[in-house]
């Protein structure tokens, strides 16, 4: 071996960025093509330092833009090997063209997205605008709520994406700064166990197989395009979910840490719940516990896998509730929030009586405080008791100025 392994303590104090960089080191990526951007920069820096210290055997290509980063990843992945990178926000936006190309060419690239707002106005802090921007791009999207999960979900992402029945790229999201820059205790996996969990990369349609030349990235007009897009959607809908379940089960066997398509906290006999993503899930859980202690039956639902959207799991988690609050950390700019819409779509053809209302919060890294959540749960309780939404369907919370509510 031309590289050294690292002895990790059972629990290391890492922030989300370093946790992701460590996971990338442990899976022995063949090519990382990357461009730094706040707040994901430390992932790229961490990886570069591992390289400088002899812990990486693969290639690290420091390109000149995020578009080139994903372009290089696509070329490398099509050549046939394990590929990953990281980005945020404007960099993610610059990558968007190539995100569709990566998924359409069925290349299992892993992209760590450290979520950050999209300009204008320019903002370096965490919201989910970039994460939402990726949701139609044909990628699998995992969402981590803390550093531990950012670490764990990287292994799961590689395992699922590279499976030959899947062959789709995957994003692992974490919240900018709140997760990426907050040092926490992270339970580690040894280098060998981590690599063995993901396994050796198995090439497919690889350009570097010189005896089997392949053409990647064709043009397909109205006579073929639809069939290819339909196949990709079909595979996302039907092939990915079983592989995710298998990966979650295998990961639980390895580490004892259990992941689900939809995470449920205090939901067993809950009457009201909020649905959210990212670091907000943990804040909401704390407030829910507080309210539980006061005898109010509240729970929290976190979306773990954003794409493919866990339609059935969302129905199972929410259908028996009396009131639901959907929390979107991205400005929908002229529509209900994404989570509101997805949940409404899931529940519409069920016989649920749940009152569903939507909240837009936390844009540009604005804190979602416990007080916000207490008020929100109170409002949901009123809805639950009334058997209907008593407010407007969409409200902005935590924004200064006169109350903003719509629909």
């Amino acid at each position, binding site marked *: 071996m031309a590289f050294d392994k690292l002895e990790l303590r059972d629990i290391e104090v890492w922030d989300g960025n370093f946790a992701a960089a460590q996971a990338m080191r442990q899976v022995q990526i063949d090519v990382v093509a990357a461009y730094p951007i706040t707040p994901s920069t430390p992932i790229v820096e961490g990886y570069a330092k591992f390289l400088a210290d002899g812990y990486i055997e693969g290639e690290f290509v420091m390109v000149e833009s995020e578009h080139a980063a994903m372009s290089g990843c696509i070329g490398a992945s099509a050549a046939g090997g394990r590929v990953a990178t990281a980005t945020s926000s404007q960099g993610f936006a610059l990558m968007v063209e190539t995100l569709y190309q990566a998924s*359409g*060419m*069925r*290349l299992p690239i892993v992209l760590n997205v450290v979520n950050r707002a999209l300009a204008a106005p320019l903002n370096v802090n965490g919201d989910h605008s970039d994460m939402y921007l990726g949701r139609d791009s044909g990628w699998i999207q995992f969402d981590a709520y803390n550093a531990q999960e950012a670490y764990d979900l990287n292994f799961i992402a590689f395992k699922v994406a590279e499976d030959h029945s899947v*062959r789709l790229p995957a994003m692992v999201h974490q919240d900018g700064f709140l997760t990426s820059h907050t040092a926490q205790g992270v339970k580690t996996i040894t280098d060998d166990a981590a690599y063995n969990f993901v396994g050796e990369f198995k090439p497919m*349609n690889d350009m570097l197989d010189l*005896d*089997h*030349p*392949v*053409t*990647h*990235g*064709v043009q*397909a007009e109205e*006579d*073929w395009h639809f*069939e*290819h897009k*339909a*196949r*990709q959607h*079909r*595979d996302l809908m039907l092939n990915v979910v079983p592989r995710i379940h298998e990966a979650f089960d295998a990961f639980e066997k390895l580490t004892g840490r259990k992941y689900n398509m939809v995470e449920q906290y205090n939901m067993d006999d809950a009457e009201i719940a909020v649905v959210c993503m990212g670091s907000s899930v943990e804040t909401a859980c704390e407030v829910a516990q507080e309210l539980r202690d006061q005898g109010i039956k509240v729970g929290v639902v976190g979306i773990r896998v954003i794409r493919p959207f866990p339609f059935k799991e969302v129905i199972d988690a929410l259908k028996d509730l009396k009131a639901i609050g959907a929390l979107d950390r991205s400005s929908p700019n002229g529509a209900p929030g994404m989570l509101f819409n997805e949940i409404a779509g899931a529940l519409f053809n069920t016989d649920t009586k749940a009152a569903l209302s939507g909240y837009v919060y936390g844009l540009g890294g604005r804190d979602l405080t416990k007080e916000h959540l207490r008020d929100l749960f109170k409002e949901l309780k009123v809805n639950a008791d009334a058997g209907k939404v008593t407010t407007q369907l969409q409200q902005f919370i935590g924004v200064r100025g006169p109350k903003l509510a719509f629909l």
Partner: protein
Amino acid sequence: MAEQGWDEFEIGAMLRSFNGEAKDVALTLQEDRDYSSNNSFTASVADWRIEKPVFNKDYCIDCQFCWVYCPDISIISRDKKMIGIDMDHCKGCGICVEVCPTNPKSLLMYSEQTDEEQALAAWPSKDEGEK
């Protein structure tokens, strides 16, 4: 090529040039290759032509100008000899005729419907006005 349903082709709109293993492609002539049905070699653009080149080997000096400047890999040269034209892939551009240095030319353009035997029988003789 027959149009297929979404479940009938490989993912990623990936195409293979050959059936199975293809070793040393750079040293394997077209007739010895196992082209896949997705290789454009198996397709034809003959219907693009309005005019076609006719080859008269009596005057050919095997200089290979036509071979090197043919945009459509349609001049068939084997063992350093020009042996014919691939009429499935020739688009009728006429470059081969223009670059042909013999007098009279060894390649001339005729309308697509022209009978080749007749064209050869009526081949022009040496043009004394040319160098």
